[in-house]
C-alpha cells in the first residue's frame, strides 16, 4: 500500500515487485520489501512528519524518506526492476451479480472456515447467498470437515443477482483483501458472474479505490458460451493430474488496481483509464504463461508479484496505478504452458501513453 505524492519524477515503476517480494540489491544481502518502511503504524503516527518518495531514472532505486521529528531523517533506498505492465481487462459493470456489504460481515463469515482452507465456493441465487468449503469429486469426505454459511439477501447493502451461479476462488486471497478493507473500514462490492468468469472485490473511499480480481474455477459442465468463458484446457478438472490441480485449477490471479485520487475534486473514479473500453466488448483472452519461480509449492494463488504499473497520463490527473498479480502455477512449464488468463496485454496503448506493450511471454 503506497502513499503517493505526485512527484514529477515518477516513472513506470514495478511497484508490485517492491511491495510483494524481496528486491535484490547490488550487495549480497537481499533487501527487504517496502513493507518494513511503513510497518509500525504507531511509530509512524507519532514521529513522522512527512514522507517523500522519489526516484531518479538514472539510478535503479526508489528512495523513501521519512522526515521525523527532531530533525531525524530516515532514508530507505530500495532497488527495483522495471518490467512490462500488465492489466486486468475486466468489465465489472457487465457482471450480472453485484453484492455490496460491509467488510466486517464478510470477515465474520470467513472466521468460520479453518485458516488452512484454500478455496471457497460462493453460491448466489435471488433468495440466498451461501459460502461453503470447496469440494471436488474425489474429496475424501470421511476425513474432511465441511463448513457452509448461508446469508439472506437482506444482510447486504446492495443485492443484485442476475444469474444463479456457484463460483470457487481462493479464500486466502480474500482474507488478505478483507484485512485491508477492514483497516480502511469501507464496504466491499462483489461483482461476479458464472463459474470460470472472474470475480472482483472492490473497495472505494475518499482516498483510494482498489479492485481485486480473482479467477474462479471453470467447471466444464457448466461452461458458458466459449466467447465469454476462458477456453478451458483439455485438462479440465477431472482429467488433470491431482498434483496439478491445486496449482492450476484454483487459479487465483489477484489483480489489484489501486489509485489515489488527486486533490482535485472533479475526478470521477469510474473513468479509469487503465481499462480501455474497446477491449471489453469481446473479451479476447490470450494465454499467457506466467513466470512463477517464486511461487510457493502447490499453493493455489500464491502471489508472485508480476507487477505492472502504469502512470495515467491523462491530464490533469496524476494518478498512480499499481497492479499486483498473483501468478498461479509453478508447474506450468511441466504442463506445457498454456494458461487461461484474465490478463491480457493492453491492446489500446494510445490512451496510456508511456506504457509499453506487454509481450506475450
Amino acid at each position, binding site marked *: 500500500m503506497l502513499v503517493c505524492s505526485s512527484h514529477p519524477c515518477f516513472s513506470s515503476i514495478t511497484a508490485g515487485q517492491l511491495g510483494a517480494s524481496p528486491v535484490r540489491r547490488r550487495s549480497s544481502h537481499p533487501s527487504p520489501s517496502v513493507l518494513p518502511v511503513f510497518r509500525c503504524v504507531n511509530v509512524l503516527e507519532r514521529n513522522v512528519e512527512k514522507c517523500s518518495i522519489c526516484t531518479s531514472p538514472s539510478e535503479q532505486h526508489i528512495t523513501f524518506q521519512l522526515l521525523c521529528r527532531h530533525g531525524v531523517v530516515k532514508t530507505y533506498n530500495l532497488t527495483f526492476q522495471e518490467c512490462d505492465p500488465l492489466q486486468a481487462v475486466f468489465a465489472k459493470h457487465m457482471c450480472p451479480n453485484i453484492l455490496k456489504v460491509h467488510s466486517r460481515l464478510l470477515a465474520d463469515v470467513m472466521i*468460520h472456515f479453518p485458516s488452512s482452507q484454500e478455496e471457497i465456493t460462493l453460491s448466489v441465487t435471488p433468495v440466498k447467498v451461501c459460502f461453503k468449503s470447496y469440494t471436488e469429486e474425489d474429496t475424501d*469426505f*470421511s476425513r474432511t470437515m465441511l*463448513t457452509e*454459511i*448461508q446469508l439472506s439477501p*437482506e*444482510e447486504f447493502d446492495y443485492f443484485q443477482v442476475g444469474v444463479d451461479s456457484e463460483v470457487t476462488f481462493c479464500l486466502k486471497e480474500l482474507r488478505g483483501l478483507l484485512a485491508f478493507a477492514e483497516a480502511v473500514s469501507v464496504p466491499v462490492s462483489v461483482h461476479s458472474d458464472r463459474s470460470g468468469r472472474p470475480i472482483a472485490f472492490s473497495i472505494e473511499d475518499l482516498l483510494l479505490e482498489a479492485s481485486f480480481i480473482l479467477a474462479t474455477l471453470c467447471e466444464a459442465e457448466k461452461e458458458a458460451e466459449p466467447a465469454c468463458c476462458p477456453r478451458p484446457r483439455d485438462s479440465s478438472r477431472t482429467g488433470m493430474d491431482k498434483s496439478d490441480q491445486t496449482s492450476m485449477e484454483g487459479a487465483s490471479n489477484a489483480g489489484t488496481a489501486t489509485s489515489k485520487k488527486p486533490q482535485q475534486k472533479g475526478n470521477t473514479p469510474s473513468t479509469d483509464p487503465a481499462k480501455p473500453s474497446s477491449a471489453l466488448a469481446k473479451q479476447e483472452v490470450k494465454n499467457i504463461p506466467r513466470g512463477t519461480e517464486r511461487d510457493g509449492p502447490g499453493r493455489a494463488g500464491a502471489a508472485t508479484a508480476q507487477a505492472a504499473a502504469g502512470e495515467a497520463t491523462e491530464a490533469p490527473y496524476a494518478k498512480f496505478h499499481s497492479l499486483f498479480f498473483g501468478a498461479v502455477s509453478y508447474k506450468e512449464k511441466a504442463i506445457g504452458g498454456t494458461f487461461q488468463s484474465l490478463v491480457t496485454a493492453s491492446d489500446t496503448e494510445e490512451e496510456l501513453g508511456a506504457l509499453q506493450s506487454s509481450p506475450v511471454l
Partner: protein
Amino acid sequence: MRFRAKIVDLACLNHFSRIINTIAKLAKTCILRLTVCKLYFILSDKVANGGASMWCELSQGNFFDEFQMEGVAAEHNEIYLEFVPENLWRALKTAQSAKAVKIKLTNKHCPCLRVAVELPSLSSSSRVVTHDIPVGVIPRRMWNDFREPSVPDFDVSIYLPVLKTMKSVVERMKNLSNFIVIEANLSGEMNLKIETDLVSVTTHFKDLGNPPWASEDGCQSSAQGRDLESMAEACIDIKKLQQLLAGQQVNPTKALCNIVHKRIIHFILLHEEVSLQYFIPAIA
C-alpha cells in the same frame, strides 16, 4: 441410529465448548459414547496414544435443552462414534454468540455430526453456519474395548496442588526434561522432580491432604497400613502431564491423583457437571 441435540443457553454452550477444548488437547481422535442420559469421551490405552487413556463423563441434561437418541438396537441403546475433537472444537469456537446450536447425526456422503449454528444477524432471518464433522461408527462388537477403567489398586492417593501453580511449574520443567517423576505420600506431601545430566530440579508441595477412600470390604490393602511418610512415585512423560494441565481452564471442584508405585498415575478432575479421569502409565 439417530441422534439430535440442541443447546440454547449460552452459558451451557460455553461450558460445553470448554470441555471439548480440554478433550481436544488430550486426544487427537477419541470415542464419543452417547446414552440416553450421558455423554462420554473415551480414549483407550492403545500404543498409539502412548498408553495414556481418558474417561470423561457428563450428564446431557446439564448442557442440552433437547436430547434425543436411538441406539443401534433397543437392548443396546447406545451409540459409539469415533471423531476428531479438534473439529468439534472448531465448530463451537465461533458459535459463542449463537442463538442455538443443533447437533445431529447424519449420513450424506459418510456418517457425520452436523453442527448447525444459528447466529444473530442484522436481518430478520438468522445466519446459519453448518459444519459437517466426519465420524466413524464403532460396531457393537468393539464396544468392549471402551469400558470404563477401574480405579487401580493405588499406593497413595493425594489431592493435587492448585492447578495453575502446578501447570506453570510443569511447563518450565518441560523445557529441561522429557520425563517427570511425581512422588507423594499419605502425609499430604508431593514432589515433582526432573533430572538431567546437567541439572535436577524438585518442587515440593505440602499440606495437600489425602482423600479418604471408602474401603470396600476393607480392601484398599495397598494404602492401608502404609507408612505415612513413605513416598510412592512414578516417572511419566512430561508432555502428557502438561497437556492435561493446559486443558484445564477452570479450577475443578476436586483434583486428585492416585499413584501406583512405578506403574501408573490416575488423575481425577471433578467439576460440577463433568468428571475427567486420565491415566498416564509410568515409563519403564
